[in-house]
């Protein structure tokens, strides 16, 4: 019991009290549910690998998206995390390939370029087939720093490098917008 609490306590966002509550919940689970949970944890560690192309987490490499012949191989969209791929896929507006960095450059937290999948990105970008790189890191200080690092180090003069539009979110409010967001929204204004 103490070991289970200790292990759960190591999960992000789980404090000692929540760990105890979860441990008691697991103890009260029917046997088959508890074993299914344990099996899922074991299986995910045994079977999930990095895709040889996009570096996303997958159970078969290359992943479904990279293996899909209908995807446009000339455009790469760089995202921070696997969850960002899911968010982009929900839009159904991007038909290119992805590249997952698994984080952003965060010197304060000891995360530099070598801790990310940047080397793999630069190898992919060296392929002349790729004509556009969409850097879709979050518009945060660290996301922007990562985008600048990619632009500086990608090594090609003929590559089109873009990032996602900056501006007001749907359902947002001008009154509460910060000056950077608002000025970028002005810069990116569109005819209606």
């Amino acid at each position, binding site marked *: 019991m103490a070991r289970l609490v200790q292990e759960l306590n190591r999960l992000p966002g789980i404090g000692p009290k929540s760990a105890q509550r979860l441990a008691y919940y697991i103890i009260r689970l029917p046997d088959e549910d508890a074993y299914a949970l344990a099996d899922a944890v074991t299986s995910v560690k045994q079977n999930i690998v990095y895709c040889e192309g996009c570096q996303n987490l997958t159970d078969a490499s290359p992943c479904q998206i990279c293996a899909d012949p209908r995807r446009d191989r000339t455009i790469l969209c760089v995202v921070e995390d696997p969850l960002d791929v899911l968010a982009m896929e929900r839009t159904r507006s991007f038909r290119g390939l992805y590249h997952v960095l698994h984080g952003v450059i965060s010197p*304060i937290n000891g995360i530099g370029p070598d801790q990310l999948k940047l080397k793999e990105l630069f190898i992919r970008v060296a392929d002349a087939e790729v004509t556009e790189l969409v850097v879709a890191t979050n518009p945060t200080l660290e996301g922007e720093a990562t985008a600048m690092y990619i632009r500086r180090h990608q090594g090609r003069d003929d590559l089109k490098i873009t990032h996602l539009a900056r501006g007001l979110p749907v359902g*947002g*409010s001008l009154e509460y917008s*910060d000056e*950077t967001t608002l000025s970028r929204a002005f810069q990116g204004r569109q005819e209606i």
Partner: protein
Amino acid sequence: MAPPRTYRCEAIILGYTPLREADLLVTMFTRDQGKVKAVAKGARRSTSKLVGHLEPLTVVRMSMAHGRNMDIISQAEVIRSFSELKEDLTAIAKGQYLAELVDGFGAEASANPGLFQLMIDTLGAVEADSASDMPLRFFELHLLQVSGLMPELYHCVECRNELEPDAHRFSPNMGGTLCLDCSPDDAHLRPLSLRALKVLRLLDRSEIVESCRLSPDDGLAAELKSLLSTTVSYWLGKEIRSNSFLERLNKESHPEVYI
């Protein structure tokens, strides 16, 4: 009478970490209360009224409410965003180095308005000239000063004699400069050139704008950087993590200096 539940403050955002589903735990350095950690509820949602106002290296006016464990940010308004700094990778790396040092030296519930103003002035200097390292050297020395750890630059810390215009030695552990006649057994002892001592004294007596006009040659710049960052790291008691990324960018910009 019970203290007021809410208060206002000016703060520099140092960083944040995700908390729960959509919240942020924001670390900031305030003018009146030193380092504060507070929760910004719902700030990770794109429609949050706080989003965009809590980016690191931004000076913000805050409305806060005392919480049971941690204070809650109820409103935030950007006073100075340093937007040009945030468009330059080297300047961002320097800003993050400053933030890490303020996070390390700033104490919670202990006002240090000198440090607050020093950080703002240094961010302004980095924004004005991201190529120069002098703003960082000025910051390191004055950070030690406002933290009560200023190294002695005018007298030998061992014999207390006034320092002659000559090469000397320096030890963060002993609190500053030593003359060549004193030879204590100290693992942190290192040589200090006369030129470096002169620049340190100039940094001590000058305003940041004047200090940033200095452009030391590569050898002197390397000596100052090594001496001050080692001293700051010594007092911090740990490695400054953002330094390695900054070094990496410097190496890429000036490979000849590092051969």
